């Protein structure tokens, strides 16, 4: 159990360092108009937290929670684990800076747990986790969400090492670039840069 705690702590730390290292990899397309964004971009603000180009830094601890050790969520059936993961984050679904940031934060928390199943469902173009995602994103209707995500599978999951935050950003990008979906899901791409 101690091991689990320290690994979680370590993964939290690793997460923050990982993000700190990220901006070098991709440069923010600051000059590009928002809706035509080619790839999601990251930049740092405040030195330690994860930042999104469609809003301010992530709202909850969920935003820095990554899936490096995804399965550890399940390595214990104790309440303590759940407290660690959700007690702090579950009440934070109300980040109000921009609707899309709040959405992204909810998606992070959902995807960190459902990543494997979601990848399966997106590859299949349908499934329960896509319906759940639609609900998390407040999509009204959005019948073609499954097919749209399926068509962009390789964009959303470019490698097996993709982080949760990236998955979220990629999904928002895909939805934002589809005119009917962006309306149905209320995703507006706001460039904060």
């Amino acid at each position, binding site marked *: 159990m101690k091991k689990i705690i320290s690994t979680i702590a370590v993964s939290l730390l690793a997460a923050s360092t990982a993000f700190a290292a990220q901006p070098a990899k991709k440069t923010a397309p600051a000059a590009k108009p928002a809706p035509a964004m080619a790839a999601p971009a990251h930049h740092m603000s405040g030195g330690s937290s994860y930042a999104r180009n469609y809003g301010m830094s992530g709202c909850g601890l969920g935003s820095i929670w990554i*899936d490096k050790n995804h399965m550890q969520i399940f390595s*214990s*059936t*104790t309440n303590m684990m*759940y407290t660690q993961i959700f007690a702090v984050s579950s009440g934070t679904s109300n980040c*109000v800076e921009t609707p899309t940031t709040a959405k992204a934060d909810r998606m992070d928390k959902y995807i960190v*747990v459902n990543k494997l199943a979601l990848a399966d469902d997106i590859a299949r173009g349908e499934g329960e986790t896509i319906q*759940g995602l639609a609900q998390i994103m407040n999509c009204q209707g959005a019948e073609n969400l499954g097919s749209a995500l399926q068509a962009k599978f390789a964009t959303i999951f470019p490698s097996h090492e993709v982080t949760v935050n990236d998955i979220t950003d990629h999904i928002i990008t895909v939805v934002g670039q589809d005119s009917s979906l962006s309306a149905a899901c209320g995703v507006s791409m706001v460039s904060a840069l």
Partner: protein
Amino acid sequence: MGSRLFRGPILSFILGACLFACVSTPVRAEETAAATEAHLVARARELKLWNHPQWINLVHYEKNLFGGYTSQADGLEFFTAKDGPTNPEAELFATIHALFRAPTPLELIRPKAVSDPGMYEALKKLTDEFDKEARAAKYPPAIYGQKLEEKKRALLGIVPDHPLCQFPARLRFFERELGWKGEGLPKIECFRLDEFRRRVDAQSVSIVFSSFFLNNPSSTFGHSFLRINSGLWQKYGKSRNELLDTGVNFAANVTTNNPITYALFGMLGLMPGTFLTVPYYLKVREYNDHEMRDLWSYDIDLTPDEVTMLIDHIWEEQSTFYFYKYFTENCSYHMFTLLDAAAPRLGLTKRLSFYVIPSDTIRVLYRTPGAVKAVTYRPSARAQFFYRLGNLNDAEREALDKLVDTHDVAALDPALPKESAARVLDAFSDQIELVSGDDLARDGSEAQKLKQRVLVKRASLGVKSETIEVPAPDRSAPHLGHGMRRASVGFARENDRGNSVTFGYRFSMHDFLDPGVGYARNMQVDMFGAWARVLTRPNQGFRSQFEFDELNIFKLTALTPLSRYYEARSIRAELGWKKMYDRDCEAGDRRCFPLNLEFGKGWVVDPGTHETLTLYGFLGGRFNHSPHYRGSNIRLGFGPRVGAVLYLNDDLRFGAFGEYYARIWAEDDFVFKTEATLRWGFTKGFALDATARRERDVNEGLAQLHFYY
């Protein structure tokens, strides 16, 4: 309970508004409040409301040995009266009084949210620093969680609730029973309670049972928890999506990782247990996917009022804890106390026997009139894979087998129609999950890379998979199973000692030959059993006639047939005292009663693939200790055990095995035993069986009657 943080800035105007209200009209308001309270108290006294079953249930009172009441709740914040834990009447009046208490200024302030400026960084810093401190101090997990939580709460300005916000269910109960609409109560906004209600958006509730999982000792008997079925989907989708429901779990805050101390603490009730609400998708991923357990949901037939009461009562539970008792006040028991608090008409806890086993509670629930309105099944990842496998035609199956063997996704036959290729890849993708387990979560693992290749290929086909509906395997529906306790009587004849009468009792739960449905077939979990016999030896006293055949602590066997699609883990383990015929025993009849510990790893074949005939072979070791051996007190044996289980139908089963142990430290170099049993469940709850057994030099025939309850 998960909701501890709230949005938005501090609404200082609320404080201002209240100050204004309190200052400007204090006398008037206090008078009304005092008058109302006096009226309510008088009315409650008239009705003797403290005897009301719902009051008893809401405070979790239980009749004690002296005819009075003791509350099961162990956290004292749950009580408003000093003698609240033992005095329902005092607690009732103290609660009414507390509801009218003027709020403190802190209680009126909206707690800070993580999204407040700087708060996110502050929380992260706090967590980092605390982690260093915790590592230095080596806090056990439960303390770690609790201390961190306290610190976070302090940072966010979360203070204990005013009683109005802490006891919404009690308030609701008073309102209904006293014909009152909350007049005279202080005006308080319950920020956190409102957020909780909004988040769960309860429409109905279900009890969810996750089936047995042999690899995890804490779940040997299954697990149950509550699901709050949300109505939020109606806003966004066309069909209900369980994933976004809320699970309510009762679990011990485990303070040890050592299975023996775990068992001991659990049985003695030394670990505090608390209720926690988590997103249901977390439970789905944990049970269905990670542990490969099926989930069975029992939708509870509650009125809307009862549902509201239940949600409010779950909220109340956050201010207390209950010592977790593995066999009595466990996860399943506390799900019943929640339901009883909301709907005393069900009287569920009273229907339980002293020892509470999760699958037992499911049978009780199912039989309780007006409790269950529907049963639904949610397949494990394993069940989903086998369903997909069953839907493949020959060509698809061949393609799948090739993929399983070669992992060469690119070589998938391009001649396959897209829909076929999709079915093959979907099954293969599931299969990877089945065999890789935790590897999939490790970055850079082969499993992860393979899965990625499969999914990219699958997505590129561009066709949608058909939604699969795995039919519920009614045979293993937990509510249909036989009672776990079994009492037996029988008659035996041994070729060397003559006749005897046998008696047996098993506390739980199931062996291969027990009749009926409701349990996984190739599984044996027996815990705490005693078997004995009285020999009809002439001219000897009872002491020499009575002997124990077996005192069993546990016997576990999992028979997982070998398959090209997944890794089979078949094991057996046994611990207890067992009477054995052994030439090394000192006694004249060569019987002794050694401590017996066995462990074996097995290979299982299921030729018909329908679990009608299962053939198994185990290789294992055995440790025996008895003061009545000749020479050394210890025997160590190694050897095979082979056998078969045949399911003739649901109620008629046949099993046979032979075992051979080569021994060291023994005078007789080996022991062996063969045994065959035919068991027939001739009517519900009863079974008859006949056993023939040979042990080294002696033969025995045995006929038994079993009663399951």
